[in-house]
């Protein structure tokens, strides 16, 4: 692979008090790659993900996205992090839709306030995105009037409205009823076809196997396994991965 990385972490370290959450983690993500991060709770998956767009500060190493880099002295709202967030979108486990805005309002807020688009332009694109995630009839609904799956699809449309190159998904199906998960996962599969770079923390082993190009296993703050799904999920090399998969798959 000669293509340069779109997201690169070099020796990223993160500590909470005395506990090391990320222990000098390095990884490079190529454009268009679908990466699934799996691993036991507390293994550092979410922390790694949130380090990429600066929602977590880091205590060592650096995060490089395009021309921007976050180092250990950066705050959550520093300029480099803000520039990174213009190309890296994020979807959260608990949606975090803005409750005081309608579905369309949620999608249009950042394009208007951050990207400086006109309301008309933002709304026309916002409607398109909501249709794309299957919510063509829900423009004027407030988050409280939507189901969990619908909320999460609004959240994805909201992130896509900023035309990101990379989308970070933090356990986005975790809070959903099983029969609603497919609504969201179907949307992700569509995005994959469009060539978006996806980095997702997930417990959906089945989905990872089907959709991911690459599976990364994080445990104890380190990457213990990294490779194509067939290799990592079906023929794990390390004892830690084997144990984890046994626990998850039963």
């Amino acid at each position, binding site marked *: 692979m000669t293509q340069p990385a779109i997201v690169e972490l070099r020796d990223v370290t993160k500590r909470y008090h005395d506990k090391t959450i990320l222990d000098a983690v390095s990884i490079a993500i190529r454009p268009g790659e679908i990466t699934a991060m799996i691993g036991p709770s507390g293994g550092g998956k979410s922390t790694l993900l949130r380090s990429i767009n600066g929602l977590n500060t880091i205590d060592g190493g650096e995060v490089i996205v395009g021309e921007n880099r976050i180092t250990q002295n950066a705050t959550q709202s520093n300029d480099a*992090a803000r520039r990174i967030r213009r190309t890296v*979108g*994020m979807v959260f486990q608990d949606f975090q839709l803005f*409750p005081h805005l309608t579905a369309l309002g949620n999608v249009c807020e950042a394009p208007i306030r*951050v990207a400086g688009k006109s309301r008309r332009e933002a709304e026309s694109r916002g409607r398109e995105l909501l249709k794309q995630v299957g919510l063509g009839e829900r423009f004027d609904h407030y988050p409280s009037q939507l189901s969990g799956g619908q909320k999460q699809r609004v959240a994805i449309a909201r*992130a896509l409205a900023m035309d990101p190159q990379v989308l*970070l998904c933090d356990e986005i199906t975790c809070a959903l009823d099983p029969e609603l998960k497919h609504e969201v996962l179907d949307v992700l599969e569509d995005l994959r076809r469009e060539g978006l770079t996806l980095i997702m923390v997930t417990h959906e082993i089945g989905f990872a196997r089907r959709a991911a190009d690459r599976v990364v296993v994080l445990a104890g703050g380190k990457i213990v396994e990294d490779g194509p799904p067939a290799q990592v999920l079906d023929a794990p090399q390390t004892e830690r991965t084997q144990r984890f998969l046994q626990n998850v798959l039963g």
Partner: protein
Amino acid sequence: MKKFAPISLRFFVLVAILAVAPTAADLQGDSPRVVRLRDRLASNVLRWGGDAEGGAPFQFHDPEQPDKLVGFEVDLVDALVEQLRSQLDLPQLHAEFVQYDWVSLPLGLEKQDFDLIVSGLEITDENRAKLIFSRPYYVYSLALTVRADETRVKSVEDCLKLRVGTLSGSAAQTYLQELGVEQITAPDGQIESYQDLALGRVDAVLLDLPIAIYNTADDPRFKFVGPRVGQGHYGLGLRPTDDDLAAAIDEALSELIRTGRIRQIYAKWKMWNEDQLQLASGDRPAEAAGLRGATEATVVTTNREAWTFSRYAPPLFAAAGVTVALTFVSMALAMLIGLIVAVCRLYGPGPIRWLALAYVEFFRGIPLLLLLTFLYYGLPHVPYMGVDLAAWQAAIIGFGLNYAAFEAEIYRSSIQSVPRGQWEAARSLGMDDMTAFRRVIFPQAFRTALGPMTNDFVAMFKDTSLVSVIAVVELTKQYQILARTSLKFTEIGLLTAALYLAMSIPLGYLARYLEENWNFGHK
């Protein structure tokens, strides 16, 4: 009369000067005093301060025309102004009344809220320390009033062990204290003691004769006993720096006495008696002649029953308007300052955060009454940074600053109740912190803050009644003025309460409506 000697002396000197000076008509622009005074009164307004709250027969609202002031002092001021017009050749000169708490009148004079106190102010050493007096315009004495069936009291000396009512800050109060009366009650108004007497809360009332006559004459529940005591004089109060005006007013008073006008006014208000002959200056026989001359004044009759609903309701409604305006503007200011303080306290750098906390603790911890009094009476005296605020400005700033401390705390807890994930979601979309706060955090926090803030809003409606201490007439003050003038405490009180409820209850419903319906789709 002994106490009065300095005034007589001063007056004697003045009379001596005036005697050799040309008459007013010849002065036209020649006398430096007249020139200065014409300059001083260039606005053509002579403002006089008094207290119309239960102020009969001195000054009170006319039941026939509630927005009009009547009383013997109103007539006196009109006559004085008429005299000054020709004396100073200022044909446009007119008087303007400023309502003030009686006990605060010297403060208002010093603050230049008016030029002249005309409010039955007794010429005493204590008052003379704060202001200068005109020559006396009325000779009062103190009358002792008891219930009609009272048998114990023959004179004020019989009251040493009894409960005696009077007026706070009056010469009668001083007289009772010096006599050694043990149980004196001295409310801030002059009709309360008579109410107390009728109800048996006090056994006797000692007050100035004009007040006693007005409040008890023809009332079968009361009688006067004993000789009148403690004779003294009412004078017009002026600022010590205003001696030109004082001299002109003395001259005008002299004319009113000489022409018999003053006797006419007192006769009209049933206040004339032989004591008033002392008003004449010994050096001016013409004045004595004026006081002795025949008078054809029509005696006024005031009828408290004339205070019907259609007469007292309009001034009450107008005062309710003041309350509403004051509350809305003050609350808007409090919500603005409160937001700034809350944001400083949550997100400011160390020292700013500390200052914001200090602000909250300070303004939450001091009584509103203290703050208002300081802003109005104290602030002008602060060295280098003294500001002389108008009463309504002081009121709005006082309420704004005080309530801002409470609103800041409401904002703070509301802002903190917005989940942290909302910040992260906003930031992950590329918003800077300012945009995230304005567009995402604050709208949600404000919705949460709405309920508690409405409570404060309703509380402020009632708290605004405190501003009467700084001479703003709002609903409660207007109630007191009207009730004390008409003695219809219950009737007017019920209307006043209804007005407060009419303002606060809809607000409560509005808040509930907003909470239920401005709820981002929640059912």
